[in-house]
């Protein structure tokens, strides 16, 4: 039972354009969502997160949108740069106000390629 799904295994965009990565979840108890970026042979790197009390969080070129009614979140990267080429994972957890995230449930990942 895949509780977090990234249905697009890959995405290719032109440099300077917007990249939109999507993620769906099934467990309505999740209240905290994160996006990670992973380069080959490295561990995932935290990008941005959002609490379920918000519907948008922005950090520089990265914005995460959360639609709780649809159980859907997306990561927007604007403008996309070649260095953004990597695998992007969304993750979800039930944080319940704790300072720690608790165990993360990850999607399968989307490979983003940004072409110069």
């Amino acid at each position, binding site marked *: 039972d895949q509780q977090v799904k990234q249905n697009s295994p890959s995405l290719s965009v032109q440099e300077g354009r917007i990249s939109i990565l999507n993620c769906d979840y099934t467990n309505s108890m999740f209240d905290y969502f994160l996006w990670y970026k992973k380069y080959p042979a490295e561990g*995932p790197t935290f990008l941005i997160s959002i609490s379920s009390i918000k519907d948008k969080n922005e950090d520089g070129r990265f914005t995460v949108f959360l639609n709780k009614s649809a159980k859907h979140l997306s990561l927007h990267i604007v403008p996309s740069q070649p260095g953004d080429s990597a695998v992007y994972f969304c993750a979800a957890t039930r944080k319940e106000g704790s300072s720690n995230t608790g165990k993360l449930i990850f999607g399968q990942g989307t490979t983003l390629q940004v072409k110069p």
Partner: protein
Amino acid sequence: GAGVSQSPSNKVTEKGKDVELRCDPISGHTALYWYRQSLGQGLEFLIYFQGNSAPDKSGLPSDRFSAERTGGSVSTLTIQRTQQEDSAVYLCASDLIGEQYFGPGTRLTVT
């Protein structure tokens, strides 16, 4: 500053042998997690340590897998009688304020 470190970076072992994977979390981080990533898959939660509480072992795939965290710092993941399906990248993460910081992983290959 020191991040999460893991050793060894690569481990090749024969089927049936035991292996130990080590994780050194970021100093002061109270929570420590183990995940694994099989080829073409997302990250799969294995086990979670939070301070002195009993660990959450709900993700361990079989009783061949165990982990301990000594002194609230270093953690060791042990896989007994390894099988070929145990081949994966094993990732450790630590967390203090709502962001999990990952180590580079240990690539385990069981031949």
